């Protein structure tokens, strides 16, 4: 049983790798776009401009309150009928996860920027830095330590949540697993494998986040 199970995994390796590539691809792209979007969100919120704060708060609250899977369905089924655009399921998942991740990372960045003493901003402006220099050289570098552990946590959550992509039809690792089960009925083996796959991907990240958190924030 055990050897035939390993054999099945070995034989299916090319298929599983393609699926894993798609799962990790969605996550990696979503992490990239979320980081960019989150950084932008955090910086814009820290400017304290009312006309920016209102729409950004609405965006944040909506993505916080409504579950990711609901957003996935909304974009996947809704974009074609509301805007006449139909996005392939893969890109739909990337888009939704990016928007969600950006709201989560954005709040982390905003909090980290807020924790920096006001004097830093004032001093920077007083010596004549423009906004780009102020954020790029003074504020964000100082915020980095505080925001890295929680941002890694958001990345783990993005990785886990990317599994939902199968529900809008992405042929990700879960779908590949289900196809193998349809052929072989090896459901315990395959779902056990999926369990291990996600654990191996996510555990190092959450462990790293914990270590960094302890090292930087309790010193």
């Amino acid at each position, binding site marked *: 049983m055990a050897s035939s199970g390993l054999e099945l995994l070995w034989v299916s390796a090319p298929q599983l790798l393609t699926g894993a590539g798609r799962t990790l691809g969605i996550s990696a792209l979503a992490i990239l776009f979320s980081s960019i979007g989150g950084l932008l969100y955090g910086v814009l919120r820290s400017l304290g401009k009312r006309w920016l704060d209102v729409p950004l708060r609405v965006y944040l609250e909506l993505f916080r*309150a409504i*579950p990711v899977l609901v957003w996935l*369905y*909304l974009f996947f089924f809704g974009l074609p009928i509301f805007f006449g655009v139909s996005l392939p399921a893969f890109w739909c998942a990337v888009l939704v996860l990016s928007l969600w991740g950006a709201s989560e990372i954005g709040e982390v960045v905003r909090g980290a920027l807020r924790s920096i003493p006001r004097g830093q901003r004032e001093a920077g402006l007083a010596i004549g830095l423009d906004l780009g220099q102020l954020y790029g050289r003074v504020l964000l570098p100082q915020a980095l330590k505080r925001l890295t552990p929680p941002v890694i946590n958001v990345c783990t959550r993005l990785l886990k949540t990317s599994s*939902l992509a199968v529900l809008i039809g992405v042929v990700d690792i879960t779908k590949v697993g289900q196809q193998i089960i349809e052929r072989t009925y090896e459901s315990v083996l395959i779902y056990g494998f999926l369990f291990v796959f996600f654990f191996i991907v996510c555990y190092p990240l959450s462990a790293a986040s914990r270590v960094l958190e302890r090292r930087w924030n309790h010193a």
Partner: protein
Amino acid sequence: MTFDYAFALSTLPAFVRAVGVTLQVGLIAILSSLTVAVLNAAIATFKVPLLHRLVPLYVELARNTPLLIQLFFIYFALPALGVRISGFAAAVIAMTFMGGAYLTEILRAGIEAVPKAQIESGLSIGLSRWQLLRHVILPQAGILSLPALFANFVFLLKETTVVSAVAVPEILYTTKNYIALYYKTYEMLAVMTGLCVLLFLPLSLLLGLLERRLQHGQFGS
């Protein structure tokens, strides 16, 4: 594109039931997760042999795997091992498996924050370990972890949408079902979004308020 009000209205009873199912799954999952967390807290505090080494293992395993995979394992893989369960039961078990781990982590952090002197004083006035846990540690740890607990209750309630994948007739499953049956995508997406906003937005806003007040909020991850 016109909005078919008559059709949307005709699905209302089904969606009322769906909200009921969402709340039912969510509340059962929250209560059983809390039970798991308190048991784990007791195991950790009393250092129950063997078990207290398994608790961190369970927490890491449950927190580092997606709910969907846990759910599929319980629903599709357990039958092969001779355990056949309904979608509803699978949903509750999977959500308890995940939620229990999150809440365990939160209670653990809360317990660690209870001053050592409290525990020493409790022991020195002759409380038994059980009395200590019940009257000294848990009440204080509970208050300390209240915002984080509440955050995770809301999180769990939102996660119920995932159990639509095993045909539990909650809001999302009902939406998908109607779309597949009648192609009324526009109407059903509108109803789904409306219900989610009504159900989750007030909770989410309340949570934000609570977190700003208490500044302890920490989302599980």
